């Protein structure tokens, strides 16, 4: 039990996807201009990442390994993830249009989010079992969500501040992310 808790703490704080693993940065910078969208995106990522982590785990352990075709990992994972995301999108659009308007619009963005593929590959590398993989994927997504939500609230606040022209937009966002990454370094060593 403590092990699982530690996986979460590690994924959220110590080895945060954004600030320590450097995964999923494009949507992190792209979808963080408004808090509301950031919250939607975080939810979508939590949903998809947990799902993708689970399914890729199954593919890896019951297909790729027994058949000895580990080198197809990348291509198989990305194919699965892409179809999965699109499938969810299509179904959600029809079945739950309100949810779609909240989350669905982020789904296409998620396909090209390396956090999904990256975390899936990492859980394989870390040799996690199924439960650990699910917790790890969920925790990483949670870390993404936390980082995204505080980041976007800061960026929204920056909208009302007088940023020098040369720094408006991406540069100041990078600097804020840098300072946040420094703050996150305080958690280093908490989970070995």
């Amino acid at each position, binding site marked *: 039990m403590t092990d699982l808790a530690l996986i979460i703490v590690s994924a959220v704080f110590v080895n945060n996807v954004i600030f320590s693993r450097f995964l999923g940065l494009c949507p992190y910078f792209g979808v963080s201009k408004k808090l509301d969208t950031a919250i939607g995106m975080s939810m979508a990522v939590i949903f998809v990442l947990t799902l993708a982590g689970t399914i890729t785990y199954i593919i890896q352990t019951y297909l790729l390994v027994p058949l000895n075709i580990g080198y197809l990992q990348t291509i198989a994972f990305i194919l699965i993830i892409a179809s999965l995301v699109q499938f969810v999108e299509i179904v959600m659009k029809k079945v739950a249009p309100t949810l779609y308007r909240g989350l669905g619009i982020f789904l296409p963005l998620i396909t090209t989010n390396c956090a999904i593929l990256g975390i899936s590959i990492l859980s394989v590398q870390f040799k996690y079992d199924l439960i650990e993989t699910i917790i790890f994927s969920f925790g990483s997504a949670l870390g993404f969500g936390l980082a995204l939500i*505080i980041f976007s609230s800061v960026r929204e606040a920056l909208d009302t501040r007088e940023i020098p022209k040369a720094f408006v937009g991406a540069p100041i966002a990078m600097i804020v992310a840098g300072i946040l990454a420094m703050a996150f370094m305080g958690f280093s*060593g908490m989970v070995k």
Partner: protein
Amino acid sequence: MEANGVLIMDSSPLGRTGESTRKIMFTVCLTLVPALAVSVWMFGWDAVRVLVLTAVFTVGVEALIAKFSNTKIDYLDGSALLTGILLAMNVPSNAPWWMLLIGAVVAVVIGKQVFGGLGQNIFNPALVARVFLLISFPMQMTSWPLPGAFDGTTGATPLGILKTEGIGAIKTIGVGDLAMGHIGGSLGEISALALLIGSLYLFYKKYITWEIPVAFIGTVFVFTGAFYLINPAQYASPVFHIFTGGLFLGALYMATDMVTSPLSFKGKLLFGFGCGFFTALIRLFGSYPEGVSFAILFMNAFVPLLDRYFPDKKFGMVKNG
């Protein structure tokens, strides 16, 4: 009927109190004098050197920016000076000049001016610089001259000793030593009492309010106390924790930086609580011996959220008419 020159047009109100940005900033600087005096007494001329250099560097960097930017920057408004003094209080007294220069540049440029200058920054500039230095130069930033030891002997802070050598090594340090400054540490870290005395005037002037310091220190006390009760053989006492590692400096002067802390009552309490919680967490479980700077910096990022979701109650927000 003609006046001597044109009349002034402005929006109401046309009166003001005597408060001004400068007055606030210089007052805060002045209240730091007791703590500075203690550190000079403890560390000698080195402390003066660090103080003067850092203050000159921060104000100088800001003056340079003011010169080359086309927006109006008042580099003598005291905020850069204050940032400088607080930064100086966050480094060891034997810090080399180039480190202080880097710190000043980071504080003023990355911590403040890229956000648009005074009042626009999200993160505490002095802490951005301190954490930057801590991460960049862990060697210089974690070996401290011992107070009163003018021969250049260095050692770790009590928290550093606790982290690397375990609980046994700190048994000899008494509460009196901690409160009075007979411990290793940065300039401002060593005397909790002097800081408290200085800050009383700030409370009186309402430049700072009680919520953040009380919530901050209280949370650290409660959390470290809980672990102490569980296992006193492994964890240090809460009294040790609140008197070490610049907790007072952080709670009274840095977490309370008005620019980078929440505005509402609930926001302040939560902010203080968050600072305390993460400080305790990092101290108890992290690699870094000290968590105050990281915790405050981390919580700075939550200020917009706290402002937004925990505002004060408005007049007229009553249920039915």
